[in-house]
């Protein structure tokens, strides 16, 4: 057919490319139920995901308070070892899977992808809606495990067998572990439905002129993370099934013959290390699943608020893709001291450190975007700066752990805890917070309160940095993680009580200020300052909708046509310091043409 019109797309001529994607026939809500509850609008689904994730996330947050209280002031809050381990486990699992994964992919993914690629909705809104409700069910199952006899599982979020399904572990011989596994399986099913939608929407439903290399990095981050998730979650799913069978039917996939408390169990010949491989084949991509969206979003925040194009866009895209690809062949760096075939250490240490190179490129490009920018220190910008610092810090400690010989003394100590909180517990969380400030005007049409926001930022950043930076040094001393109580015996050179108390107090304050943030969200959504259209003067399409906040169907009668990348800030010759993606070249005739 019209082969020349294809050339037009490539050459960025002003002619409007032919429409390849059939107009989407959206389902129109007819009642309260289909409008707000079983809604098929990706934006509403995104908000539903977000609220559910934050709600269960608060359980994780409160768990961390209780844990910290026990570590620093044992006995102040009555708790026994079993309860402590239940808190640790639920804290870890909730934070990683049910909060961050669901918030980034389900929440931000649903809200932003269709808007940013210029689509009316996800490609299969119905499936998308089901996806949320399945996720919701997973959360309910997870929450139910608090109420069964024996309580939730206390197996550690890594759920290593045999310990996870034996009676020496809280919840191990009751329903706790079963509900956890079922909940995860349900989560995977629900996520797959949503994830397929995000992937196909990005690949097959972009608006005219929107090539992959014109996508905002936010979309690239979420998209790649989703692809990772689609290929990594199967490992968790299968491992979960097999562990459930080991537990319920007495099969021996992961269970060798063991004798526990003098009683011989009937299992025979299974391999506990197999589970660890499966778990980390999922687990390592998983940590990038929560990191890549943060990478993408923060790139956009920095670019918008520094009024400068993101530096090295193409490198950024390739870095995301390469990190995603490599993340499937580094998993066993979590198992250096797990008793696997020792020769794997060489292979996995090498791949692990290789992955630092594309990550480094991303860091360089963020700071180089600041270079010669015109930096507005708005709240999203502040959070982005904080992100860079914490991420670099955490990433660099990752290099300690990735280097196999160095991991030997540090593994299973608080150094690891500090590493992953720095790089996962605060860096992406800071991005989430920043992006809420950034996109709140789009979601509600109002700004969040600036004063409260500043307080929130300062306390969160300084607080969380002072929680985790000192924690590394506990790790150097050899303080082991997952200890209900550390007896200060011969092992340590110096008392750790003081530092632990300091950390706990910092954690309490940092956690508490999040409630200020939530208060801010609630109040500002009603009484905040009106924002108007495109208050940050951003280029990307989500700000170019007919109404703000965008309504069902997102755009006006015609979908926008895209003529440039999403980073045309401060283009020489242009009147304004930004040119939106849908501005045709003729409208900004004097401006230098787009480069990429």
């Amino acid at each position, binding site marked *: 057919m019209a082969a020349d019109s294809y050339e037009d797309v490539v050459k960025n001529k002003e002619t409007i490319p032919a429409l390849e994607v059939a107009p989407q026939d959206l389902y129109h809500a007819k009642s309260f139920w289909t409008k707000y509850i079983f809604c098929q609008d990706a934006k509403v689904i995104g908000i539903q995901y977000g609220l559910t994730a934050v709600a269960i996330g608060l359980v994780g947050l409160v768990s961390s308070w209780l844990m910290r209280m026990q570590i620093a002031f044992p006995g102040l809050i009555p708790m026994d070892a079993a309860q402590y381990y239940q808190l640790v486990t639920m804290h870890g699992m909730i934070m990683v899977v049910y909060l961050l994964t669901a918030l980034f992919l389900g929440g931000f993914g649903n809200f932003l992808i269709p808007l940013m690629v210029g689509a009316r909705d996800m490609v299969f809104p119905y499936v998308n809606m089901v996806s949320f409700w399945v996720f919701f069910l997973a959360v309910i199952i997870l929450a139910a495990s608090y109420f069964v006899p024996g309580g939730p599982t206390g197996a550690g979020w890594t759920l290593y067998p045999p310990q996870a399904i034996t009676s020496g572990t809280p919840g191990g011989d009751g329903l706790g572990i079963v509900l956890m596994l079922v909940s995860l399986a349900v989560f995977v099913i629900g996520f797959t439905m949503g994830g397929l939608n995000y992937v196909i929407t990005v690949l097959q439903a972009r608006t005219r002129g929107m090539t992959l290399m014109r996508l905002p990095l936010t979309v690239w981050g979420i998209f790649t993370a989703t692809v990772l998730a689609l290929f990594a979650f199967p490992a968790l799913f299968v491992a979960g099934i097999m562990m459930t069978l080991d537990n319920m039917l007495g099969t021996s996939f992961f269970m060798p013959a063991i004798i526990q*408390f003098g009683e011989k169990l009937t299992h025979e010949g299974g391999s506990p290390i197999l589970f660890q491989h499966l778990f980390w084949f999922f687990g390592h991509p998983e940590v990038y699943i929560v990191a890549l969206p943060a990478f993408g979003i923060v790139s956009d925040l920095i670019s918008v608020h520094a009024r400068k194009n993101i530096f090295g866009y193409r490198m950024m895209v390739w870095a995301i893709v390469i990190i995603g690809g490599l993340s499937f062949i580094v998993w066993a760096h979590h198992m250096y001291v797990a008793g696997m075939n020792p020769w794997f250490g060489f292979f996995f240490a090498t791949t692990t450190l290789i992955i*630092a190179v594309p990550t480094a490129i991303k860091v360089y490009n963020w700071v180089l975007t600041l270079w010669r920018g015109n930096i507005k220190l708005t709240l999203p910008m502040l959070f982005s*700066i904080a992100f860079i610092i914490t991420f670099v810090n955490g990433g660099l400690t990752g290099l300690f752990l990735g280097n196999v*010989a160095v991991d030997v003394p540090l593994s299973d100590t608080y150094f690891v805890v500090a590493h992953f909180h720095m790089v996962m517990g605060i860096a992406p969380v800071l991005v989430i917070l920043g992006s809420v400030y950034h996109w709140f005007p789009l979601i509600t049409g109002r700004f969040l309160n600036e004063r409260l926001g500043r307080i929130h930022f300062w306390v969160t950043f300084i607080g969380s940095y002072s929680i985790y930076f000192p924690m590394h040094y506990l790790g150097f001393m050899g303080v082991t993680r997952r200890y209900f109580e550390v007896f200060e015996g011969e092992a340590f050179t*110096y008392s750790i009580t003081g530092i632990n108390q300091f950390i706990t107090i910092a954690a309490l304050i940092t956690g508490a200020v999040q409630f200020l943030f939530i208060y801010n969200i609630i109040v500002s959504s009603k009484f905040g300052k009106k924002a108007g259209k495109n208050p940050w003067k951003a280029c990307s399409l989500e700000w170019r909708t007919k109404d703000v906040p965008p309504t069902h169907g997102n755009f006006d009668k015609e979908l926008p046509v895209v003529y440039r990348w999403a980073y045309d800030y401060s283009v020489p010759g242009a009147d304004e310091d930004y040119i939106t993606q849908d501005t045709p070249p003729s409208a900004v005739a004097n401006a230098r043409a787009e480069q990429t």
Partner: protein
Amino acid sequence: MFVVLLVLIVILGSVVFHMVSPWWWSEIASNWVGMDDTIILTFWITGAVFVAIGLFMAYCIWKFRYQKDKRAEYEPENSKLEWTLTILTTIGVIALLAPGLIVWNNFVTVPKGAYEIEVVGQQWGWMYRLPGKDGVLGTTSIKNIDDDNPFGLNTDDPYSLDDVLVDADDLHILVDRPLKLNLRALDVLHDFYVPQFRAKMDMVPGTITYYWFTPIKTGEYEILCAEYCGTGHYAMLGYVYVDEQKEYDEWVNEQMTFEEVLASNGKSDLIKIALNKKNDL
């Protein structure tokens, strides 16, 4: 320009904290100085990168702060700069990795002269087994474990009879002799970890893992279980005593061999079977 100050404080504060922190590793008591050295090297390289990035960022935030009538520079990419940085980073990575891999190679290859001890972990305590006079540990099986045979030794294994069984949380080892630890678990994962020795390895039920080291200082060291193993994980402690030969021998002599254990339980028939096997050899 509060933010610039903040960034500076965070960066420099981290460095200062690092220098004055009293929380630091205990003095090393094994041959794994290479691990410490690699950590120090990593500290230098990553520390330099951390400070450099932090300072650069602080400078940018200060220098390029928002001015109404100014425009940012328009520079989509600069491949020369990007490639230079990439190559520098790669060099940095190689500098970290190479020594690390060498140390790891030492760690997984046990030297010829090493003697062996088996460490057994179970919820929530330790047991040890020495190979006895023949220098070989007998084979085991979970199925053999009962009150008379807590280690699950195979009675039809001729090497098992002289194995020395230590059913206690404390272990004595020899100073300056390379030692290979065979690690075995009876129920769930554990991890035999002494901070001063630096080395650690999980013990996995259903298989045997190992590591080796040479203790270089006599003394008393605390054992921590480093792999989560259930409710009692935090209390799974013990002591290692690094001894000179004399004290070590005294300790060994106090312990019972498998043969003695069997005899004291009146299982002389089993001893007979084992001895016959031995004679067959």
